[in-house]
C-alpha cells in the first residue's frame, strides 16, 4: 500500500491522470463522533473517518461518474481509469452544458481537512452521565443520540475550479418516558441542531424533558377530526422539507407535482400561500451556513454533474406568498425558460408579522392541540402533495392559553403547501430541527411556529 495523500493532492493527481476531454474531482474528508443511549445508559458509540473521491469524466457530451474510498495514488488512479472508461462508453448526456469556469479559487484551498473526534463531547458526556442519574431519581427513562460531523469538501476541475468548503453538522435528540401510577406511559422529546456542541447542555435537555412529561399529569383522549393545531418550529420544519424536496422544476413542468400548471407548465408566478409568507435558502444564513457552490456526483432531476461549482446565493422559493422559483439545473432551466436556481442545503420559512415565541402562540389559543414533532411522513398524492404521518412524543391540550394535559397521538393527512395558505398565526422564525429528516438528510432549517385552524387528524394512534 502506498502512502496516504492529502485531499488537494488527490484532486491534482486525478485531474492529471484523466485522459478525458474534461474532468471534475470531488474529495470529501468526513469524520464523525456519536453517542447513543437508552434506558438511562449508553448503548453504542463510535468515531469514524472516511475519504471519498468522486471522479466525473467528460468525453464529448457523455459523462462517467465513479466514487470510491480512496486515500492513495493507486486508488485514485483506478477511479480515474474507471470514470474515463465509463464516459467513453456512455451515450450523450441530456443535461450537457459547458463546465463551470472562472470562479475564484477558495482562499483556504490549501488548508487541511477539519476533523472532529470524541473530544467534542468532553463537556457534554459527563453532563449526560449526570442527567442519567437525575432521570433515574425522577423515575424518568432517557433515550437519545448525539452526532457531530465535519465534512471538508474539495472540488477541482480541468476548467480551473479549486473550491473548498468545511461543513460542521451536529444534532441532539432526547426522548424521555415515564409510567404514571395509573400504568399509562407518557413520552416527550427535545431535539435540535448545533454546529459544535458548545451550546448543548445535557442537564438542560433532561430538565426540559421532565417539564414536558409533567404536562401529562392529566390525560385527555380525543377522537379523530379537524383541530385547531399549533405546529411548533420543529414540526413546521418536518413539513417544509417535504415541500422543498418536491419542488423539482422538471417534475413540475411535466405535470407531476403540486407545483404544476397542467397540462404543461409550472405555477411560478402564482400565489400559492398567504401573503407575507417567504420560503428561501441562503448559504450565508447564520447559523445555517452551508456550501456556497453546487456539488453533484451524478445527474438527476434536480442535479447535474455539469453544474459542479456553480455559485449559490440566496434563492427565494416563495416570496410574499408567490411561487417564485423551483429547483433548477441549467438543463431544466433551459427546458422551462426560467432562471437557474439550484438546490441549497438550508431552508428558511419567514412570515411577515410573525412575532413572539411558541409560548406566545400557545398563550393566544383558546382551545387547541400543541404538537411536538411529526413522524413517518410519506407522500400519498403528488398532485396536492398530500402527506400522511403521525404525531409523536407529546400532543398537548391547550385551553385558555395554557397547556392543561396530554392527548393521544394521531395519524394526519395534510399538504404542507396547503397549510401555508390556511394558517392563522405565526411566531418569529427560529433555528429548528426536523425530527423526521434532520438526523440523516437535512438539519439546517429555521421556521416559525404555525397555528392551523383545521388540521386533519385522520385517525387515532395508540402509540406512545
Amino acid at each position, binding site marked *: *500500500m502506498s502512502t496516504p495523500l492529502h485531499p488537494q493532492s488527490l484532486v491534482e493527481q486525478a485531474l492529471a491522470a484523466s485522459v478525458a476531454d474534461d474532468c471534475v474531482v470531488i474529495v470529501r474528508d468526513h469524520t464523525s463522533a456519536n453517542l447513543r443511549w437508552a434506558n438511562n445508559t449508553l448503548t453504542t458509540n463510535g468515531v469514524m473517518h472516511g475519504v471519498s473521491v468522486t471522479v466525473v469524466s467528460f468525453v464529448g457530451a457523455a459523462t462517467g461518474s465513479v466514487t*470510491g474510498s480512496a486515500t492513495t495514488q493507486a486508488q485514485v488512479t483506478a477511479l480515474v481509469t474507471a470514470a474515463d472508461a465509463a464516459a467513453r462508453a456512455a451515450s450523450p448526456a*441530456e443535461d450537457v452544458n459547458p463546465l463551470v469556469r472562472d470562479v475564484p479559487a477558495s482562499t483556504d484551498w490549501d488548508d487541511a481537512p477539519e476533523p472532529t473526534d*470524541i473530544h467534542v463531547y468532553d463537556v457534554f458526556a459527563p453532563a*449526560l452521565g449526570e442527567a442519567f442519574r437525575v432521570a433515574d431519581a425522577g423515575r424518568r427513562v432517557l*433515550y437519545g443520540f448525539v452526532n457531530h460531523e465535519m465534512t471538508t469538501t474539495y472540488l477541482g476541475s480541468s476548467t480551473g475550479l479549486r473550491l473548498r468548503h468545511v461543513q460542521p453538522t451536529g444534532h441532539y435528540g432526547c426522548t424521555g418516558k415515564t409510567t404514571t401510577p395509573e400504568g399509562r406511559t407518557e413520552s416527550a422529546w427535545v431535539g435540535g441542531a448545533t454546529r459544535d456542541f458548545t451550546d448543548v447542555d445535557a442537564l438542560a435537555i433532561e430538565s426540559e424533558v421532565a417539564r414536558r412529561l409533567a404536562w401529562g399529569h392529566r390525560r385527555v383522549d380525543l377522537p379523530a377530526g379537524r383541530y385547531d393545531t399549533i405546529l411548533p418550529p420543529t414540526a413546521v420544519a418536518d413539513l417544509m422539507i417535504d415541500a422543498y424536496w418536491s419542488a423539482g422544476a422538471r417534475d413540475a413542468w411535466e405535470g407531476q407535482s403540486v407545483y404544476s400548471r397542467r397540462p404543461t407548465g409550472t405555477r411560478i408566478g402564482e400565489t400559492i400561500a398567504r401573503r407575507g409568507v417567504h420560503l428561501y435558502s441562503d448559504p450565508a444564513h447564520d447559523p445555517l451556513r452551508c456550501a456556497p457552490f453546487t456539488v453533484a456526483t451524478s445527474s438527476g432531476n434536480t442535479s447535474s454533474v455539469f453544474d459542479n461549482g456553480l455559485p449559490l446565493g440566496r434563492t427565494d422559493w416563495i416570496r410574499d406568498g408567490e411561487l417564485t422559483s423551483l429547483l433548477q439545473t441549467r438543463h431544466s432551466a433551459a427546458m422551462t425558460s426560467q432562471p437557474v436556481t439550484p438546490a441549497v442545503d438550508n431552508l428558511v420559512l419567514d412570515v411577515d408579522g410573525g412575532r413572539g415565541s411558541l409560548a406566545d402562540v400557545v398563550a393566544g389559543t383558546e382551545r387547541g392541540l400543541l404538537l411536538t414533532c411529526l413522524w413517518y411522513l410519506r407522500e*400519498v398524492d403528488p398532485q396536492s402533495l398530500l402527506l400522511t404521518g403521525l404525531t409523536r412524543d407529546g400532543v398537548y391540550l391547550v385551553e385558555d392559553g395554557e397547556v392543561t394535559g396530554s392527548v393521544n397521538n394521531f395519524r394526519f393527512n395534510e399538504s404542507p403547501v396547503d397549510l401555508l395558505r390556511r394558517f392563522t398565526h405565526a411566531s418569529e422564525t427560529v433555528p429548528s430541527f426536523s425530527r423526521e429528516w434532520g438526523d440523516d438528510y437535512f438539519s439546517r432549517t429555521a421556521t416559525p411556529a404555525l397555528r392551523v385552524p383545521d388540521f386533519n387528524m385522520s385517525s387515532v394512534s395508540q402509540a406512545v
Partner: protein
Amino acid sequence: MSGLDPTFADLPHRALGDAALTRARELGVTHADFRLERVRYQDLSVRDGVLQGASDAEDLGFAVRVIHRGSWGFAAGVVLTTDEAVRVAETAVAVANVAATMTSRPVEIADEPVYDDVTWVSAYDVNPLDVPVAEKAALLIDWTERLRAGAAVDHATAFVQQVQENKYYADLAGTRTTQQRVRLMPGFEAMGAGADTFDSMASIAPPAGRGWEYVVGSRDRGAWDWDAEIAEVPELLAEKLKAPSVEAGTYDLVIHPSNLWLTIHESIGHATELDRALGYEANYAGTSFATTDKLNHLQYGTPVMNVTGDRTVDHGLATIGYDDEGVQTQNWDIIKDGVLVGYQLDRPMGVMLPQLNPGPDGRGRSNGCAYADSSGHIPIQRMANVSLQPDPSTDAPGTADLIGRVERGLYVVGDKSWSIDMQRFNFQFTGQRFFTIKDGELVGQVRDVAYQATTTDFWNSMEAVGGEDTWVLGGAFNCGKAQPGQVAAVSHGCPTSLFRDVRILNTLEEGGN
C-alpha cells in the same frame, strides 16, 4: 454460482484484522471484532428514452469494535495499513473508556461457535456489475420507449440499482468469515394525465438477491416477466386515469404479495425486532407494541397466520451465511398459528433473554440478525427475511378463489405510499392498482385509495392465505434504522391473502378543506 471476487480476496484483510485484534487484546479488551468491508454500487436511470444518470460508487474501509470496561467502543478508518489498523483499534478502546463513564449495565454478548476461515457466496449466476453499462442502459431505454408507445403514457422512467457486498469478519475468539452477495432492484414507471388528473403506474417487480439473470434470464431461472408487464402497464394506466374515485368506507380486501410484503415489513418485521421492544430505538425508529411480556400469548392474527424469520433462504435480500457478529444464520418461527412466539436477535440481546433462543448450554444464542451497512457503522440488530407462510394444504386457494369469496371489496396490487406509527399500531398504505370486487368478480379499477388499520386488528381480520402458487418473495432495498442512520435490504415472502372489513380512505377527501 459465482466465486469470491479476487479483487476483494486480494485485499490485506487478514493482516489488518490480526494487527487490530492483537492490539486490542494487548489493551485488555474482553471482546474485539474486526470487519473489512467493500460495497460496490451502480445506479442507472433513464427518462423518456434518454440515459439520465449513471454512477458507480465503492465504499471500502474497516472497523474495530471492542468491549472494554463493560462498554462498547467502536472506530472505523479507510487507510488500509497495519499502522492504521492499530491506531483504529486504539481509538476504539479510547472511545470505550469515554463510554464507561456513562454505562450503568456492563455489556455482555451471547456465545457462538468459532468458524475458522469459512467462505460464503450468495446464489446468483451473473454479477450485474460485470455487465457492460451500455448494455444495461440500452435495455432501460428500450423499456421506456415501449412504455411511451402507450396512448395514455406521457412520460416513462426506468432504473436499476445494483450492489455487490463483500465482508471479512474476524474476532478474538477465532472466527474468520469471508462473504459475498449481490442484489439488484430494477423497475419502471409510466406517467400520464387525464382530464383533470395526473397519475402513474409502476412495475410491481420486487428487488432480489439475484444476478443479472433476473432481468434477462428465463422464467425458470427466476427472471421477472418484464416484457409482459411492460405490455400491460400502459393499458392499466389508461384505465386508472379514467377510473372513478373510491367511496370511502369498509371493504374486504384481497391483497396481492406485491402490496402485502410491505405491510408485513412494517407491522410484523419491525414490530418483532427485540431491540425495539427493549427500547434501543425509542429515540428514533420507535419501540414496539409486541413487548416480551406478550410472548406466547399475544394473538397477533388469526390461526392461519404463520410468520418466520429466515436469513438462509436463497435470493433473500437479508440472506447471508454469517452475520456481522460472526453468528451462523438461521430460520425460526416468529408467529405460530397467529400467536407471537419469537423475535429477531443479535448477540447482546441473545444473552439478555436466553429463553428466546437457547444455546446448547442454556445460555441465550443470537439468531443471526446483526448487520452494518458499511465499515463506518456499528452492527445493530437488523431484520431477517420475515415471511408469511402460504396455506400448505393440497386444496389451498388461489388468488381467483380468494376474490371469489368477496361480495364487495378491493383487490390490491403493488406498493406505493406507506406509514406506520412508532409502536407499530396505526398504519396507512396505498398501492399501484385497486380493482373493485363485486360478487366475486373484478369489475375495473378505482382511484385515490388508502387502507388504514391497527396492526392486530388487521391481522386478526385475515380470513385466508393463498397456497404456494400465490407466494412471492417481495422486499425492500433501503430500509432505514438506527442512529447514525443505516440502510438494509430485506425480503418478505407472502401469499395472496383475504382480509375482512378494512377501513378504506379516499385520499382526495382526506386532502380536502
